[in-house]
């Protein structure tokens, strides 16, 4: 291993950058931006390299582990390790923060604090994806939530203070449920010998047996707790408000990565430790996921504010992720994690674009725009790529992910959840596909309203296209979308190979 402790370095580089930025004088904006760019580049390079090693050397299971005992008697330790799922999501996070740094190049209002909080937030996100200790998992989760309050409240737009408070309280409510579920897991876990396991080590906890009764209620608590973050209906209302009010880079991270923390938590902790509980609630997760897909898309269709459209589309897409999990087989879950990745990149791209469009036209009202493709062809092209990925056109990452999810869902739970000979999950898959049709409708309508049709020369006669640093964001994210769409096998191998412990 040429780099010692690679995962700890991934975790510490944004944190270190945040601390160093605090010491940089307020006026030296360039240094602040460069520090942030360097830190995110380090994470990006390291995480891509780790993915490469993991695949090329045929590794499986958890790798690159670092461990440090924290509170010995209580079984809490700093324990980071990564399998294919963690690695692909870490790669996603690194990509989004890398692009987010460039997308916030234009932030000048208290930029120093902005980058500090942003990097702190990212540290939390990396921590959640890498922690194999349930306790540190929770700790990093909370570290990811709190900077959000200040980021939205200070640098946001619109009803920012309301949105920030709503988001924070919702997410902390989720963490309250998680904490109770976690403590329950900790105290119920018994080693095969009958002694209390007394550990938060997920690798240990996931191998133990739990009573069915306990699994059912503990899984439900975890589902609600993580589900709030994953934007499950009807607990999703914080997310459109939060996304719409947040500044560009924060929306990117938030919709792109933070919501995945919820789905990842359900997968890693819920499905990993409590498979029977997951089986028992699969119908509920599936039904709510389909409501998410259809309802989210339907509401997105009715929005006039560009950011709200994208925000509700996130709610809809997270439904696909949850449906894939509910179907609970290797195909659907591979699709589900791939959808997390693909949606993260896609939403990141979308929010970056919305930020650009708003910056240049000073409006987010869809009906007030039109014909902008003539003035900003680059932005229009990137928007189209994102849009096509959004409703899953073949050749984009969205297609592969959604296809896998729906394929998996059709054949899911063949023995259970049937009423009068009609099985539940194929029906769910069919209904969900209606949601995809609605998605196509609003995405195409969006493209048409914003970029095509007559151009208002008086208002938008001289709006510029994207420039320098902004291109970095757009090109990187669009390329990844297409690359994964054309060549999905590295990612699907990475994900599929690591699903073993979570499958029934």
């Amino acid at each position, binding site marked *: 291993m040429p780099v010692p402790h690679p995962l700890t370095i991934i975790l510490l580089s944004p944190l270190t950058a945040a601390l160093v930025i605090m010491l940089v004088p307020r006026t030296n904006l360039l240094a602040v931006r460069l520090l942030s760019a360097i830190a995110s580049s380090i994470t990006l390079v390291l995480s891509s390299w780790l993915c490469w090693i993991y695949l090329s050397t045929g590794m499986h299971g958890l790798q690159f582990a670092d461990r440090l005992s*924290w*509170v*010995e*008697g*209580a079984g809490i330790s700093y324990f980071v390790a990564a399998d294919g799922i963690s690695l692909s999501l870490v790669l996603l996070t690194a990509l989004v923060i890398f692009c987010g740094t460039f997308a916030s190049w234009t932030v000048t209002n208290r930029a120093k604090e902005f980058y500090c909080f942003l990097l702190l937030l990212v540290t939390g996100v990396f921590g959640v994806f890498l922690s194999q200790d349930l306790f540190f998992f*929770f*700790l990093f989760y*909370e*570290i990811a939530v*709190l900077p959000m*309050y*200040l980021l939205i*409240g*200070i640098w946001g737009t619109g009803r*920012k*203070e309301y949105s920030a*408070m709503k988001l*924070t*309280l919702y997410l*902390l*409510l989720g*963490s*309250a*449920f998680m*904490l*109770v579920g976690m*403590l*329950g897991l*900790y*105290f119920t876990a018994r080693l095969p010998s009958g002694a209390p396991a007394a550990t938060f080590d997920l690798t240990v906890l996931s191998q133990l047996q739990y009573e069915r009764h306990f699994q059912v209620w503990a899984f439900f608590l975890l589902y609600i707790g993580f589900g709030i973050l994953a934007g499950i209906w009807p607990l999703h209302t914080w997310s459109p408000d939060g996304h719409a009010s947040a500044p560009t880079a924060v929306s990117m991270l938030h919709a792109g990565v933070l919501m995945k923390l919820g789905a990842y938590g359900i997968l890693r902790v819920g499905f990993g430790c409590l498979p029977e509980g997951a089986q028992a609630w699969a119908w509920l997760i599936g039904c709510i996921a389909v409501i998410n897909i259809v309802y989210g898309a339907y509401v997105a269709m009715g929005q006039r504010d560009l950011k709200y459209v994208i925000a509700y589309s996130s709610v809809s897409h997270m439904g696909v992720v949850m449906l894939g999990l509910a179907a609970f087989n290797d195909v659907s879950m591979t699709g589900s994690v791939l959808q997390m990745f693909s949606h993260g990149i896609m939403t990141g791209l979308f929010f970056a674009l919305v930020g650009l469009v708003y910056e240049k036209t000073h409006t987010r009202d869809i009906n007030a725009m039109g014909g902008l493709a003539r003035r900003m062809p680059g932005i229009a092209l990137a928007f189209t790529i994102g849009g096509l990925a959004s409703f899953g056109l073949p050749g984009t990452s969205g297609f592969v992910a959604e296809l896998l999810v729906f394929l998996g869902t059709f054949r899911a739970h063949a023995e259970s959840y049937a009423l009068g000979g009609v099985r539940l999950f194929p029906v769910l898959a069919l209904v969900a596909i209606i949601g995809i049709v609605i998605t196509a409708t609003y995405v195409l309508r969006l493209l048409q309203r914003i970029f095509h049709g007559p151009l208002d020369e008086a208002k938008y006669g001289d709006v510029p296209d994207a420039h320098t640093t902004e291109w970095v964001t757009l090109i990187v994210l669009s390329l990844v979308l297409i690359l994964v769409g054309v060549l999905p096998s590295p990612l699907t191998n990475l994900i599929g190979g690591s699903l073993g412990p979570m499958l029934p």
Partner: protein
Amino acid sequence: MIPVELAQLKPELLTLGAALAIILADLIQGRGRLPAGPQAGRRWIGWFSGLLAVGLVAVVAGRWQHLSWPVQLWGGVVVLDRLGLIFKAIFLLGVAVVSVGSADYAAQRFRHVAEYYALLFFSALGMMLMASAGDLITLYLGLELTTLSLYVLCSFAKDNPRSAEAGLKYIILGATASAVYLYGSSLIYGMAGTTQFATIARTIGWFGVETGMIVGAIFVLAAFGFKIAAVPFHMWAPDVYQGAPTPVTGFLSTASKAAGFAAIVRVFLGPMLGAASAWLVFVVALSALSMVVGNLLALSQRDIKRMLAYSGIAQAGYALVGIATLSSLGTMATVFFLFQYLFTNLGAFLIVTAVGSTEGDDRISGYQGLSRRSPLLAAALLVLLLSLGGIPPLSGFWAKLFVFWSAASRGLYGLVFIGVLTSVMSLYYYLMVARAMYMEPPGEKPPVRLTLPAAAAILICVLVVIGLVYPRPLLDMAYAAASGFVSR
């Protein structure tokens, strides 16, 4: 030749000595030669008292090695053990931080500066006695010494009618609580025929739990409930906290609260543990009510001192969860909770003191744009408030975690649920202050004036709150102390 008993009481005796030394030093400096009225030239007394208190903490720490087994003095009237030592360290650290933190405040506002510090030491002495009590009467002596000193401290800002009101309210309600305590003790004495804890425990063990004993215990619990400001005995707290000089409020809300908990641990996890089945439900109710009512009432406060008062009521509820577990794990959690709460809340109150001195009042709206006016101070208050709200990785998070943890280990999931949900609720009002500081424009307001000693005290508080990210050493100590006292 010093009697053996007195050598054992070195920390207490030296605390008494420190109080007298402060008065003496002030006299030697020559009060007569200084002009009458508030004088900034006497801020050295603050540093001096802080130094003395830190020295006393060192003395207390030095006793740790000698008390691997509890020592009983005078036939068990005073019990010295490690648990008591930790509580004593908490009280004295409180005195140290308050002394240094209010060095300028006291010198500028109070006429009798030396007496202010001496009274802090006297009340700490009372608390130390409470933490070592092995007898209902000893406990009462400690309780009275503490509260009598605090009555005076509350009304120390003589020119301010609110301060006088606070002192009066506290003395009337405090005297009632003392009466309730004495009545409860008399019932216990009537049933057990003794006031000594060890003998009471044996009586309960032999003869079982009798009604009179239970009634007595509940009266005693009510008196302690007053001391820690738990619902429904919390009514005095917001008014007294608001009116008292802010550093005194800080002391009242931390050290004095910790003393109440020391007494609860001594009595209820000591002799009354055998009767737990009868009184446990009341502790659980106190805890749940404090968490819910304290947090609910804090939501709508506009005055930061009142808000912190209600938040303190809620915090008492969290700390009580540890007691309700009746276990050494829970006791450890409560002790850890109180330790970190001392620094968190004192730090917050010292910042409130500084902002209040600049703004002229304590409304939360006075914190507008503080992050622009005094960025470091705002960041410090943010950290402290987030710790109070239980946000990881700050100390308040670990404290709440271990409290809930101990409760979960005893199957008290109801309390855990109430605890975590009300914690989320509490974030709302803590974040409202953050909102004022970070999201609202500063307008024409000036930066906050912060003097060196106050800044030093706040810095120490923040460092402790952040430093406890690695809580193990303190937890180990607290566990060693708790498991020496509670065997379960």
